[in-house]
């Protein structure tokens, strides 16, 4: 649905009604403001991560000499180095890189669906929506694998010293959950679950919305309506999910 930019008769104020001052429909505008508030939520999570991380000492030795310990924050590339079907083979960040690539690609297919919608090309919208849904499901599957690997842990457990009932005891820990974490301070595991989990849930709802759009396209709802603006609105949401991942990738995995 093409919205002309706000124009009014000479001498008329654009905010007096009858015109669309922001040149966008109500629904599209509200999607933008929802995404802005969502950006604040994610920033809250990521900034808190930065706060807690900077309050912890960082590992100062050589990267090769790195071992898991509660004394310092772990180097992410030493934690996330596993790839499916390559057990025991160290490939730092490769799997996360693949996930990033998948999400960027699904963002491209989404924007191509929007472009097809502008042209009223129903067949092309169907095709690109299917690719987008496929990308989303692939990403979620990758994340499921990564979570499983993170929770189950490495082959060799980590020994930690813990202060229990007034005495130091050594505990061996494998994997991580909300109570124990073999990779480093407990906060690291908690943030992993909260940040990637919250993002993953966004991807999940995005896939559901994308499927709804696909269904409505196939049944001809938008054809009868005369425009494909819903594709555009859900597209905004989907791109936002990709945008958040760009930040998670940098601040959780790279830095």
């Amino acid at each position, binding site marked *: 649905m093409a919205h002309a930019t706000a124009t009014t008769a000479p001498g008329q104020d654009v905010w007096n009604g009858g015109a669309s*001052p*922001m*040149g*966008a429909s109500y629904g599209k*505008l509200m999607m*933008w*403001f929802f995404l*802005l508030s969502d*950006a*604040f939520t994610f*920033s*809250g999570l990521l*900034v808190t991560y*930065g*706060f*807690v991380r*900077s*309050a*912890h*000492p*960082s590992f100062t030795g050589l*990267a090769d000499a790195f071992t898991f310990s509660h*004394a310092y924050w772990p*180097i992410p*590339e030493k934690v996330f180095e596993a790839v499916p079907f390559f057990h025991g083979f160290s490939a*730092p*960040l490769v799997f996360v*890189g693949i996930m990033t*690539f998948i999400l*960027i*690609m699904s*963002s*491209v297919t*989404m*924007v*191509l669906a929007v*472009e*097809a919608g*502008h*042209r*009223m*090309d*129903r067949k*092309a919208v169907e095709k690109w929506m299917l690719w987008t849904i496929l990308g989303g499901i692939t990403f979620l599957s990758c994340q499921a694998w990564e979570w499983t690997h993170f929770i189950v842990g490495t082959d060799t457990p980590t020994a930690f010293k813990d202060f229990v009932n007034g005495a130091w005891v050594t505990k061996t820990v494998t994997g991580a959950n909300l109570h124990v974490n073999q990779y480093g*301070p407990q906060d690291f595991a908690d943030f992993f679950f909260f940040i990637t989990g919250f993002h993953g849930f966004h991807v999940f709802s995005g896939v559901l919305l994308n499927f709804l759009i696909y269904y409505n396209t196939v049944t*001809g709802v938008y*054809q*009868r309506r*005369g425009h494909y603006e819903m594709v555009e609105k859900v*597209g*905004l949401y989907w*791109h*936002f999910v990709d*945008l958040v991942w*760009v*930040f998670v990738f*940098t*601040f959780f995995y*790279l*830095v």
Partner: protein
Amino acid sequence: MAHHSEEQEIAVLPPDKEKIKKLWTVAGILGALTAVEFLIAFTMHHGAAKTTIFVIMTIIKAGYIVGEFMHLKYEVKVLFWSIMVPIAFIAWMLVAFLYEGFQLSDINFINF
């Protein structure tokens, strides 16, 4: 729901080749920037310089996604600034919390 026996014929416009080419270019840039980030992750030592490069590259990537994919660059100025100005709060939150975090690490109460 009433079934429309005769759906109006709606003219399908041909693909806008220029626009599609531009979208793929943006996708290429995003992919290339991610690849470079990957390269830097393994060739540079951890430190302030590396973090700064990552932050700048992430902001560039975010700019492409929001500006081109989400089309914000081409929206009316009022809409553009309505979205961009509140981001200043996030920047402030980041600065304030990181400053606080580094102060805490100096006290180092976590490892008593």
